[in-house]
Protein backbone atom coordinates (compact mmCIF):
# COMPACT_ATOMS: atom_id res chain seq x y z
CA UNK A 1 0.00 0.00 0.00
CA UNK A 2 1.23 3.45 -0.88
CA UNK A 3 1.51 5.92 1.99
CA UNK A 4 0.00 9.35 1.11
CA UNK A 5 3.08 11.34 2.01
CA UNK A 6 1.94 14.75 0.79
CA UNK A 7 -1.47 14.95 2.59
CA UNK A 8 0.15 13.56 5.75
CA UNK A 9 2.91 16.12 5.65
CA UNK A 10 0.37 18.88 5.10
CA UNK A 11 -1.68 17.68 8.06
CA UNK A 12 1.38 17.59 10.29
CA UNK A 13 2.39 21.05 9.16
CA UNK A 14 -1.07 22.43 9.95
CA UNK A 15 -1.02 20.77 13.36
CA UNK A 16 2.41 22.14 14.18
CA UNK A 17 1.32 25.62 13.13
CA UNK A 18 -1.83 25.61 15.29
CA UNK A 19 0.13 24.25 18.24
CA UNK A 20 2.54 27.15 17.87
CA UNK A 21 -0.25 29.75 17.63
CA UNK A 22 -2.23 28.18 20.45
CA UNK A 23 0.84 27.99 22.66
CA UNK A 24 1.54 31.68 22.16
CA UNK A 25 -2.08 32.58 22.77
CA UNK A 26 -2.11 30.63 26.01
CA UNK A 27 1.03 32.31 27.22
CA UNK A 28 -0.44 35.61 26.03
CA UNK A 29 2.59 36.19 23.83
CA UNK A 30 4.77 38.82 25.42
CA UNK A 31 1.75 40.80 26.59
CA UNK A 32 0.88 38.75 29.65
CA UNK A 33 2.35 39.60 33.04
CA UNK A 34 1.01 37.48 35.89
CA UNK A 35 -0.90 39.85 38.22
CA UNK A 36 -0.13 40.14 41.92
CA UNK A 37 -1.63 37.09 43.66
CA UNK A 38 -0.94 38.04 47.29
CA UNK A 39 -4.02 39.83 48.74
CA UNK A 40 -2.00 42.14 50.98
CA UNK A 41 0.34 43.20 48.16
CA UNK A 42 -2.62 43.68 45.86
CA UNK A 43 -4.44 45.78 48.44
CA UNK A 44 -1.52 48.00 49.47
CA UNK A 45 0.07 48.46 46.02
CA UNK A 46 -3.28 48.65 44.30
CA UNK A 47 -5.04 51.33 46.34
CA UNK A 48 -3.66 54.31 44.38
CA UNK A 49 -2.69 52.68 41.10
CA UNK A 50 -2.91 49.28 39.46
CA UNK A 51 -0.87 46.79 41.48
CA UNK A 52 1.82 46.48 38.81
CA UNK A 53 3.00 42.99 37.94
CA UNK A 54 6.25 42.27 39.77
CA UNK A 55 7.67 40.78 36.54
CA UNK A 56 7.76 44.27 35.01
CA UNK A 57 10.87 45.33 36.93
CA UNK A 58 14.03 43.60 38.17
CA UNK A 59 14.39 42.74 41.86
CA UNK A 60 16.88 45.57 42.39
CA UNK A 61 14.22 48.07 41.28
CA UNK A 62 11.61 46.74 43.69
CA UNK A 63 14.10 46.95 46.56
CA UNK A 64 14.83 50.56 45.67
CA UNK A 65 11.15 51.49 45.34
CA UNK A 66 10.17 49.84 48.62
CA UNK A 67 13.03 51.56 50.45
CA UNK A 68 11.71 54.99 49.45
CA UNK A 69 7.95 54.85 50.03
CA UNK A 70 7.99 58.06 52.09
CA UNK A 71 8.54 59.87 48.79
CA UNK A 72 6.97 57.57 46.20
CA UNK A 73 7.21 59.55 42.94
CA UNK A 74 6.37 62.64 44.97
CA UNK A 75 3.67 61.04 47.12
CA UNK A 76 3.68 59.79 50.68
CA UNK A 77 3.03 56.06 50.33
CA UNK A 78 4.63 55.03 53.62
CA UNK A 79 3.61 51.73 55.20
CA UNK A 80 4.39 50.18 58.53
CA UNK A 81 7.79 48.42 58.53
CA UNK A 82 6.44 44.86 58.90
CA UNK A 83 4.13 45.32 55.90
CA UNK A 84 6.92 46.93 53.87
CA UNK A 85 9.20 43.92 54.51
CA UNK A 86 6.53 41.42 53.47
CA UNK A 87 5.65 43.27 50.27
CA UNK A 88 9.32 43.73 49.34
CA UNK A 89 9.87 40.01 49.74
CA UNK A 90 6.94 39.19 47.42
CA UNK A 91 8.01 41.66 44.74
CA UNK A 92 11.66 40.56 44.84
CA UNK A 93 10.69 36.87 44.58
CA UNK A 94 8.43 37.46 41.55
CA UNK A 95 10.56 40.07 39.76
CA UNK A 96 11.50 40.15 36.07
CA UNK A 97 14.90 38.59 36.79
CA UNK A 98 13.73 36.12 39.47
CA UNK A 99 10.44 34.20 39.71
CA UNK A 100 8.68 36.25 37.01
CA UNK A 101 11.31 35.69 34.31
CA UNK A 102 8.96 33.77 32.02
CA UNK A 103 6.69 36.81 31.71
CA UNK A 104 9.28 39.55 31.45
CA UNK A 105 10.50 38.23 28.09
CA UNK A 106 11.66 41.26 26.10
CA UNK A 107 10.76 43.92 28.64
CA UNK A 108 14.21 43.83 30.21
CA UNK A 109 16.08 44.20 26.90
CA UNK A 110 18.58 46.99 27.19
CA UNK A 111 17.86 47.33 30.90
CA UNK A 112 20.67 47.00 33.39
CA UNK A 113 19.51 45.61 36.72
CA UNK A 114 22.40 47.37 38.43
CA UNK A 115 20.79 50.68 37.47
CA UNK A 116 17.57 49.59 39.22
CA UNK A 117 15.18 51.63 37.03
CA UNK A 118 12.24 53.00 39.03
CA UNK A 119 9.73 53.57 36.26
CA UNK A 120 8.26 50.80 34.11
CA UNK A 121 7.35 53.58 31.65
CA UNK A 122 11.04 54.32 31.03
CA UNK A 123 12.03 50.79 29.99
CA UNK A 124 13.06 50.84 26.27
CA UNK A 125 10.52 48.15 25.39
CA UNK A 126 7.69 50.08 27.10
CA UNK A 127 8.66 53.28 25.27
CA UNK A 128 8.75 51.45 21.93
CA UNK A 129 5.37 49.79 22.48
CA UNK A 130 3.74 53.14 23.36
CA UNK A 131 5.49 55.36 20.79
CA UNK A 132 2.28 55.93 18.79
CA UNK A 133 0.23 57.14 21.76
CA UNK A 134 -0.45 60.87 21.37
CA UNK A 135 0.23 63.39 24.10
CA UNK A 136 -3.46 64.36 24.13
CA UNK A 137 -4.38 60.74 24.85
CA UNK A 138 -2.14 60.66 27.94
CA UNK A 139 -3.79 63.86 29.15
CA UNK A 140 -7.34 62.56 28.59
CA UNK A 141 -9.45 62.94 31.73
CA UNK A 142 -9.87 59.19 32.06
CA UNK A 143 -6.13 58.51 31.67
CA UNK A 144 -4.23 61.35 33.41
CA UNK A 145 -1.13 59.27 34.07
CA UNK A 146 1.11 56.75 32.32
CA UNK A 147 0.67 54.65 35.46
CA UNK A 148 -3.01 54.21 34.60
CA UNK A 149 -2.53 51.07 32.46
CA UNK A 150 -6.13 49.94 32.89
CA UNK A 151 -7.53 53.06 31.19
CA UNK A 152 -6.57 51.51 27.83
CA UNK A 153 -5.59 47.94 28.68
CA UNK A 154 -8.98 46.98 30.05
CA UNK A 155 -7.78 43.54 31.12
CA UNK A 156 -4.64 44.81 32.87
CA UNK A 157 -5.96 43.83 36.30
CA UNK A 158 -5.91 40.24 35.08
CA UNK A 159 -2.44 40.56 33.58
CA UNK A 160 -3.28 41.09 29.92
CA UNK A 161 -1.73 44.07 28.14
CA UNK A 162 -2.80 43.54 24.53
CA UNK A 163 -3.53 46.65 22.46
Amino acid at each position, binding site marked *: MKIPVRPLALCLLALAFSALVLGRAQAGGSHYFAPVADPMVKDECGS*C*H*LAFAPSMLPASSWRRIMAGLGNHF*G*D*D*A*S*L*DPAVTTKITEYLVNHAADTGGRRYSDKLLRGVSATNAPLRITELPKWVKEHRKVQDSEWKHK*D*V*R*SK*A*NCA*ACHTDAERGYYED
Partner: protein
Amino acid sequence: MNRKLTITSLAVTLVLSFSGAGIAGPREDQLDKYARAAKASNPAFSGFSAARGNMLHNQAFTGGKSDTPACTSCHGNDTRGAGRNPAGKAIDPMALSASPSRYTDPAKVEKWFKRNCNEVLGRECTPQEKGDWLSFMIGQ
Protein backbone atom coordinates in the same frame (compact mmCIF):
# COMPACT_ATOMS: atom_id res chain seq x y z
CA MET B 1 -35.93 30.45 92.39
CA ASN B 2 -32.80 29.54 90.58
CA ARG B 3 -34.65 29.62 87.31
CA LYS B 4 -36.04 33.06 88.03
CA LEU B 5 -32.49 34.29 88.68
CA THR B 6 -31.32 32.88 85.37
CA ILE B 7 -34.13 34.59 83.50
CA THR B 8 -33.49 37.89 85.26
CA SER B 9 -29.77 37.82 84.49
CA LEU B 10 -30.48 36.90 80.87
CA ALA B 11 -32.84 39.84 80.58
CA VAL B 12 -30.29 42.19 82.14
CA THR B 13 -27.58 40.98 79.72
CA LEU B 14 -29.93 41.46 76.78
CA VAL B 15 -30.82 45.00 77.80
CA LEU B 16 -27.15 45.89 78.44
CA SER B 17 -26.02 44.54 75.08
CA PHE B 18 -28.49 46.82 73.29
CA SER B 19 -27.66 49.90 75.34
CA GLY B 20 -25.19 52.53 74.10
CA ALA B 21 -22.11 50.94 75.62
CA GLY B 22 -22.93 47.59 74.07
CA ILE B 23 -23.06 48.67 70.41
CA ALA B 24 -19.68 50.40 70.22
CA GLY B 25 -18.06 49.21 66.99
CA PRO B 26 -14.65 50.03 65.54
CA ARG B 27 -15.82 53.49 64.36
CA GLU B 28 -17.04 54.50 67.82
CA ASP B 29 -13.84 53.09 69.37
CA GLN B 30 -11.73 55.16 67.02
CA LEU B 31 -13.74 58.31 67.72
CA ASP B 32 -13.33 57.62 71.47
CA LYS B 33 -9.58 57.36 70.99
CA TYR B 34 -9.45 60.67 69.13
CA ALA B 35 -11.67 62.27 71.77
CA ARG B 36 -9.34 61.17 74.57
CA ALA B 37 -6.31 62.51 72.68
CA ALA B 38 -8.10 65.79 71.89
CA LYS B 39 -9.09 66.20 75.54
CA ALA B 40 -5.52 65.53 76.62
CA SER B 41 -4.09 68.31 74.45
CA ASN B 42 -7.00 70.71 75.03
CA PRO B 43 -8.94 70.50 78.33
CA ALA B 44 -11.64 72.76 76.83
CA PHE B 45 -12.42 70.14 74.16
CA SER B 46 -16.16 69.50 74.17
CA GLY B 47 -16.81 66.91 71.47
CA PHE B 48 -16.50 66.59 67.73
CA SER B 49 -18.41 68.63 65.20
CA ALA B 50 -19.54 67.34 61.82
CA ALA B 51 -19.89 70.97 60.69
CA ARG B 52 -16.19 71.60 61.39
CA GLY B 53 -15.42 68.33 59.60
CA ASN B 54 -17.38 69.57 56.60
CA MET B 55 -15.33 72.78 56.57
CA LEU B 56 -12.06 70.89 56.86
CA HIS B 57 -13.05 68.61 53.99
CA ASN B 58 -13.81 71.52 51.65
CA GLN B 59 -11.18 74.03 52.74
CA ALA B 60 -8.23 74.85 50.47
CA PHE B 61 -4.84 74.73 52.22
CA THR B 62 -1.51 76.16 51.13
CA GLY B 63 0.84 74.06 53.25
CA GLY B 64 0.67 70.88 51.19
CA LYS B 65 1.16 70.03 47.55
CA SER B 66 -0.09 72.60 45.07
CA ASP B 67 -1.97 70.10 42.91
CA THR B 68 -3.95 68.80 45.89
CA PRO B 69 -4.89 71.85 48.02
CA ALA B 70 -8.08 70.25 49.46
CA CYS B 71 -9.53 66.85 50.34
CA THR B 72 -11.98 67.47 47.51
CA SER B 73 -9.12 67.77 44.97
CA CYS B 74 -9.20 63.97 44.76
CA HIS B 75 -12.36 62.96 46.60
CA GLY B 76 -14.58 65.34 44.60
CA ASN B 77 -17.20 67.81 45.78
CA ASP B 78 -19.90 65.22 46.39
CA THR B 79 -19.14 63.05 49.44
CA ARG B 80 -21.53 60.41 48.07
CA GLY B 81 -19.88 60.35 44.64
CA ALA B 82 -16.65 58.68 43.54
CA GLY B 83 -13.40 60.61 43.37
CA ARG B 84 -10.30 60.20 41.25
CA ASN B 85 -6.66 60.35 42.31
CA PRO B 86 -3.78 61.89 40.29
CA ALA B 87 -2.83 58.42 39.01
CA GLY B 88 -6.27 58.23 37.41
CA LYS B 89 -7.69 55.59 39.71
CA ALA B 90 -11.27 55.95 40.98
CA ILE B 91 -11.81 56.42 44.73
CA ASP B 92 -14.96 55.03 46.33
CA PRO B 93 -17.23 57.66 47.94
CA MET B 94 -16.21 58.80 51.43
CA ALA B 95 -19.76 59.16 52.83
CA LEU B 96 -20.62 56.18 54.98
CA SER B 97 -24.09 55.99 53.46
CA ALA B 98 -22.53 55.44 50.01
CA SER B 99 -19.65 53.19 51.18
CA PRO B 100 -21.06 51.28 54.18
CA SER B 101 -17.92 49.21 54.76
CA ARG B 102 -15.68 52.22 55.35
CA TYR B 103 -13.93 53.18 58.62
CA THR B 104 -13.96 49.77 60.28
CA ASP B 105 -10.19 49.18 60.16
CA PRO B 106 -8.51 51.68 62.54
CA ALA B 107 -5.02 51.08 61.08
CA LYS B 108 -6.29 51.82 57.58
CA VAL B 109 -8.00 55.01 58.71
CA GLU B 110 -4.82 56.16 60.44
CA LYS B 111 -2.68 55.27 57.41
CA TRP B 112 -4.78 57.45 55.11
CA PHE B 113 -5.03 60.36 57.55
CA LYS B 114 -1.24 60.35 57.80
CA ARG B 115 -0.63 60.26 54.06
CA ASN B 116 -3.40 62.59 52.98
CA CYS B 117 -3.05 65.21 55.72
CA ASN B 118 0.65 65.44 54.84
CA GLU B 119 -0.17 65.90 51.18
CA VAL B 120 -3.03 68.37 51.59
CA LEU B 121 -2.19 70.30 54.76
CA GLY B 122 1.56 69.75 54.78
CA ARG B 123 1.36 68.35 58.30
CA GLU B 124 -0.35 65.59 60.24
CA CYS B 125 -3.94 66.23 61.29
CA THR B 126 -4.74 66.73 64.98
CA PRO B 127 -6.97 64.24 66.83
CA GLN B 128 -9.66 66.93 66.90
CA GLU B 129 -9.51 67.38 63.11
CA LYS B 130 -9.60 63.61 62.55
CA GLY B 131 -12.59 63.22 64.86
CA ASP B 132 -14.46 66.13 63.23
CA TRP B 133 -13.84 64.79 59.74
CA LEU B 134 -14.79 61.23 60.67
CA SER B 135 -17.99 62.45 62.38
CA PHE B 136 -18.86 64.37 59.24
CA MET B 137 -18.37 61.37 56.93
CA ILE B 138 -20.17 58.93 59.24
CA GLY B 139 -23.17 61.26 59.19
CA GLN B 140 -23.13 61.75 55.42
